[in-house]
């Protein structure tokens, strides 16, 4: 039988994949993809806990996470477009201009 631990471990693995992406990527669009992966991993954990403890709170939190992810993408992509217009690239090393 599949238990809560199974789901939590899968969610932890997916979260770690997203974390590796955030650590190793230099392109801003790819960093956004990695954060989406991490948000989805957390949603799986919430849905699993909600199912196994027979509680709706987990699903509610997953809904709000989805709403926050949607607004994050809307604002973030707007900023990416402005950055691309200004610098012509989305590479973090090109964008860093606060080196003392």
């Amino acid at each position, binding site marked *: 039988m599949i238990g809560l631990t199974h789901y939590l471990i899968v969610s932890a693995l997916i979260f770690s*994949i997203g974390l590796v992406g955030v*650590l190793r990527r230099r392109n801003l669009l790819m960093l956004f993809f990695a954060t989406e992966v991490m948000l989805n991993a957390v949603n799986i954990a919430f849905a699993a806990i909600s*199912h196994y403890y027979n509680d709706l709170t987990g699903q509610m939190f997953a*809904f709000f996470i989805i709403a926050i992810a949607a607004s994050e993408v809307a604002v973030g992509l707007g900023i990416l477009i402005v950055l*691309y*217009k200004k610098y012509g690239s989305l590479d973090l090393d090109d964008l860093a201009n606060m080196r003392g």
Partner: protein
Amino acid sequence: MFENFMASFMTVEGFAFYLFSALTIGLFTITVMSKNILYAMTSLAAGMVLISGFFFILGADFLGVVQLVVYVGAIMALYAFAMMFFDTTRDIKEQNTSNALVFLLGGLSALVLVLIFAAPIHSNAIEALYPMTEGVGNAQDVGMVLFTKYLIPFEVAAVMLLVAMISGIMLAGKKMDTSLTEDLSADDEIMIVKDEK
């Protein structure tokens, strides 16, 4: 241990769980590792579809539908449209941070998270705050809780989405008439024409 695994693999739920986990982990690995933005985006969309499969197994039907509509429908379409602004056909060149260190850190955090989640929980002490109602569908149940107990967060989320929409328009909508990919001399011509006026 192995017999346990085989027994759970034989049930429908177990088979779907292992299939979905293997596929999502593989697809998200492609998302994180791929050099091509298009491949990364496509595998991300496919992984999100499979994650909605997890939600359907877990009985969170409404959450699964919302995942399909919002993530796969809206967010991926937004990415696809935003990619028209960037040059996506070329492979991106990144100067990656040293891979050994990243995989060491990622592997360590994975190990710590798995150990934390595999630890036994005192589940008797946990009580459901908003228990699921018997004999009521998931969507109806979610609606009853969302519009009574979580009404204020719901309204705040609506305002937040409005703010996000306005800021998205303000950020991306400026200078939509000029092209990003053409050479910049076109910009100067427009400036000259404006000056002549």
